[in-house]
């Protein structure tokens, strides 16, 4: 009951924090898509480079988020930019990796058929590879988004605001309602974002690729 009361009393404040939170995670994931998807594409044809790139992204992923935020202060100072940069780095790995896997999983038969029909490299990419890999790529984007929304709660420690602010304030004030409010909103946000991106994924994926279409033996 107290929790509902807290939501009613602090509606505007909570909404403001949700907005900040979304801004941090959203911009970070968007940037990660803009960088990660093309990078994922570029490295598909070069195994060595792919290993290095994925290795670097993996290493970044292992750095504790708190340390990465602290480290980024030396570059971006305190504030949202810093947080976005750190979240961006975290979001990179799943996006690059999934793009790489998605494109690599496109069967060589498809590529050979496309080449044999006289499609150029670009046409093969946009008309064959991307549509066939889109659900795997979108899977990466969804993982990246959920991760970013979760980690963004720490961003408050470097003064970037967001729902983390509610949680840390609540801890400081021993205000459990406040802690819960922050945690619940953050979790709900992650679930909602994942659900919405799921709809986008479904929209982008051709009906011909859905499971029910594959019941007939492919050959």
């Amino acid at each position, binding site marked *: 009951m107290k929790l509902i009361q807290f939501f009613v009393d602090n509606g505007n404040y909570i909404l403001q924090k949700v907005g900040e939170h979304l801004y941090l995670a959203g911009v970070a994931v968007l940037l990660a898509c803009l960088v990660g998807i093309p990078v994922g594409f570029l490295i598909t044809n070069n195994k060595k480079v792919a290993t290095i790139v994925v290795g670097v992204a993996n290493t970044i992923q292992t750095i504790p988020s708190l340390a990465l935020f602290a480290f980024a202060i030396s570059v971006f100072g305190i504030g949202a930019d810093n947080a976005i940069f750190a979240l961006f780095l975290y979001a990179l790995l799943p996006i690059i990796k999934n793009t790489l896997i998605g494109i690599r999983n496109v069967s060589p038969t498809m590529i050979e*058929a496309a080449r*044999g029909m*006289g499609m150029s490299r670009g046409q093969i990419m946009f008309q064959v590879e991307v549509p066939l890999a889109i659900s795997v790529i979108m899977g990466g984007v969804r993982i990246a988004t959920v991760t970013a929304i979760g980690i963004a709660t720490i961003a408050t420690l470097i003064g970037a605001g967001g729902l983390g602010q509610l949680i840390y304030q609540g801890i400081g004030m021993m205000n459990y309602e406040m802690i819960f409010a922050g945690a619940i909103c953050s979790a709900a946000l992650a679930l909602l974002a994942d659900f919405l991106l799921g709809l986008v994924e479904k929209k982008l994926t051709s009906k*011909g*690729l859905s499971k029910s279409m*594959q019941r007939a033996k492919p*050959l």
Partner: protein
Amino acid sequence: MIRLEKVRKTYDGQKNIVDDLDFEIRKGELVVLVGESGCGKTTTMKMINRLIEPDGGDIFINGKSIKSFNKNELRRNIGYVIQDIGLFPHLTVRKNVSIVPLLCKKDKAEVDRSVEDLLRLVNLPPEEYADRYPGELSGGQQQRVGFARALANDPDIILMDEPFSALDPITREQLQNELLSLQEELHKTIVFVTHDIDEAIKLGDRIAVMSEGRIIQFDAPEEILKNPVNSFVESFVGKDRLWKKPEFLKAEDVMNTKVVTIGQNRSVAHAIELMKMHNTDVLVVVDKPTESSGKILGVVGTNRFKGVGDNTIKMKDIMKSDFPRISKDMCLVDVLKIRKSSDTLYSPVMDENGRVAGIITNASIISVLTKYIPDREDY
């Protein structure tokens, strides 16, 4: 139409997968490249649409080197059907078929119409199939779409890389027959790769038997069956090859060419003398015995002399003249049918001018057939 000149392809810089290949494919011809895996047949085919670049030599299409074309332009004008079908699962049948014409910036409405015609041509009514996805079709239907896709840009040349080998035998045979009847209508120049000699014989106007990057024999199917150039081709097509295609055996293959002829005005006495001399019991009566082979008028066997008291009776009076007419190129199956229905022992064979070419007897048929009887013990 397509000419290969000293075409060579090397992998790892040592072994030639395709070795100094020289051959020409005529317009409207269905040529089958056949051989065991690794013989270079697929590599040869893929060099025609530059999916593989040769290391030496050149390929010409209508006299123009394929190097002078833009790669993608070249491929858009050569239909390509592959073993794994390779339809794009994310596109409907209609979109799959219209890819190439749309790449060539053809009018959308026109492409749509021609796609529907093509689907009808490959026995997939567009009303039912055009808006379905490949995943909803059976293998045979998918490969029909694959064929429609290869035809979509109305290419003169179509390359087919083992297109039917992934299909079940019944569907395969059905599609082979459809390909033949389509080819009857379309007269495309088709290069067809397979490892299946039966398929090659069934489909090919000419067959190139390949081994180790070279063409061992390039001939019409009946020639390959009847006159394999060496033991490799012979073992490849199999010793029982003619049993697979008895219609390739012609009357001239089973006839005895040692025929004793006699003029129509000669007497019985003369006939008996001739038979003794040549140790035969049949004579072919001709109009001009002086020429090596005159026109056939009739046959005289020893049974015709029965009850003939007068040795001066002429051949034209006792000969059997209602014998079945068998021409040199009549197929063995028909010959056997005729011989059975007319119940004759001796069937003279005539060439296109009605002259004597040879004679078919039970012995001549058997002696030819035993040559082709497979080495099997269980019969």
